[in-house]
């Protein structure tokens, strides 16, 4: 963080000149950090919950290893319901649950539950699709070798689908950047909060411009990292 700050102070005169509306750059830096923390925290939890849910969706699906039409139907419906409302509405609906879970509706802590609940169904669907891309023959070969379902998940599906899974993580991370910015509007903090409060409510367009630029850079970085990882595994 200190390096980031010193970079800010070195370039401060130029930035001050370009964006005169912005009085406090450290506030912007803090907002940046908040956004990254929200993103990091929610992405980690999303993968943690979404991956098993994706596995479950895949396994219980029609014609799959553990086909369970009723369970699949219930999971699928839940996932669809959670994916239906726009994120900002979902966030408001979830406010009581959020304060129950983390004791506050505000700040980074208050933002994490709705972000995760919003992103898990999305990520789980992507994971399910990635698993379906794995050739059925490879799974059949593993069954013929006497593999258990768990062994197939652990040693066949996850490694064989890793390109698709990393691509899903990338897409989800970028979606989460958008969600965190929306969350800013209802008290989550971060870049979205600045853009909304200063840029929109206080009519200081410079905030809007800088925030949007920072978000573009963030999304670019995420996409490049994601593409690198996918490219590394995709060569095989």
């Amino acid at each position, binding site marked *: 963080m200190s390096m980031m700050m010193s970079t800010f102070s070195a370039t401060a005169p130029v930035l001050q000149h370009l964006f005169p509306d912005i009085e406090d750059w450290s506030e912007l830096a803090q907002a940046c950090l908040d956004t990254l923390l929200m993103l990091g925290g929610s992405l980690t939890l999303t993968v943690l919950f979404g991956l098993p849910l994706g596995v479950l969706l895949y396994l219980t699906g029609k014609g799959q290893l553990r086909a369970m039409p009723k369970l699949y139907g219930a999971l699928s419906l839940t996932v669809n319901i959670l994916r239906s409302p726009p994120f900002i509405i979902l966030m408001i609906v979830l406010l009581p649950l959020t304060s129950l879970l983390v004791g506050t509706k505000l700040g980074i802590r208050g933002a994490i539950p709705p972000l995760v609940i919003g992103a898990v169904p999305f990520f789980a669907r992507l994971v399910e699709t990635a698993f379906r891309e794995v*050739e059925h*023959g*490879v799974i*059949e*070969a*593993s*069954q*013929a*070798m*006497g*593999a*258990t379902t768990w*062994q197939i998940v652990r*040693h*066949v599906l996850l*490694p*064989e689908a*890793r390109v698709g899974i990393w691509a899903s993580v990338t897409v989800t991370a970028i979606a989460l950047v958008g969600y965190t910015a929306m969350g800013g509007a209802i008290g989550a903090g971060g870049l979205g909060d600045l853009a909304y409060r200063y840029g929109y409510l206080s009519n200081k367009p410079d905030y809007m411009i800088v925030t949007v630029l920072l978000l573009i850079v963030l999304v670019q970085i995420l996409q490049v990292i994601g593409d690198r990882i996918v490219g590394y*595994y995709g060569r*095989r």
Partner: protein
Amino acid sequence: MIRFVDVHKSYRVDGKDIPALHPFSLDISDGEVFGIIGHSGAGKSTLIRLINLLERPSGGRILLGDTELTALSEASLREQRRHIGMIFQHFNLLASQTVADNVAFPLRLAGAREPATIRARVDELLARVGLTEHADKYPSQLSGGQKQRVGIARALANRPSILLCDEATSALDPQTTASVLELLAEINRELKLTIVLITHEMDVVRRVCDRVAVLDAGRIVEHGAVADVFLHPQHATTRRFVNEALPEEVAGEQSLYQHVPGRILRLSFRGEATWSPTLGRVTRETGVDFNILAGRVDRIKDLPYGQLTLAMHGSGVDAALQALRQAGIEVEELAR
């Protein structure tokens, strides 16, 4: 011994039972190479998958030695499956793993943990299939024939007593097919492994199989020793398969020879008879004349055989036929 007792299989499609295999019983002996030939949709992939219960029969019993597979629990079935290797038309290797890891996979599934033990077994298997230098490559860097060799090494990892081959050479070119079949024959000889293979090519059956069953629309229409089925096909489907493997003339299309004078005969030689000058001796002794219309001398697995279509002239033809039959040559009269 693999034993099917009154086994049948049907699939439920839109509330209706569509039969894939009509009731049948079949024994496959230990150490033999058993071929199942049929067109696509005849039920052969279902049949081979019944042996490791990747497909469950709708009725009947399947036994492996004294073990009734159809009565096993999930866990014991998984244990049994480790003793049944299987290779596939499209190889079905793990694309994310190296050749060595693919071969080690069944060992790890069976609980092998010691890296040195795994490595030693993998090296041994790769040496057997001739891929020692390719251990650290990924499947995508290999040719089709090499991929199938990895499949074979993987299938042999847990020292199975049975190897199932699901159209194992159908995706390979003729030369690669020949080398993979040779490897299978070698494995059968040296490891005394029972091999069950399904194919739609009679040539594959002729090269490696001891016995064959012909499958047509879910029924076994003919089965027996390859030489018998190959030289004397009974069922129309079998004849079509045999004819694909033979030039048209050898197949004995009677209409082809209607305008040829003399009696049209087909002689089949098997084993040592193929190498002895019986035909020359008999024609000299009986004073008949003949001309060859078509012929072929080849091998059915290790058994040399010959098949000649002749037109025979002269008063001694009947005596000649008798003499030929006495010398162990099978004679069929196609037209007179």
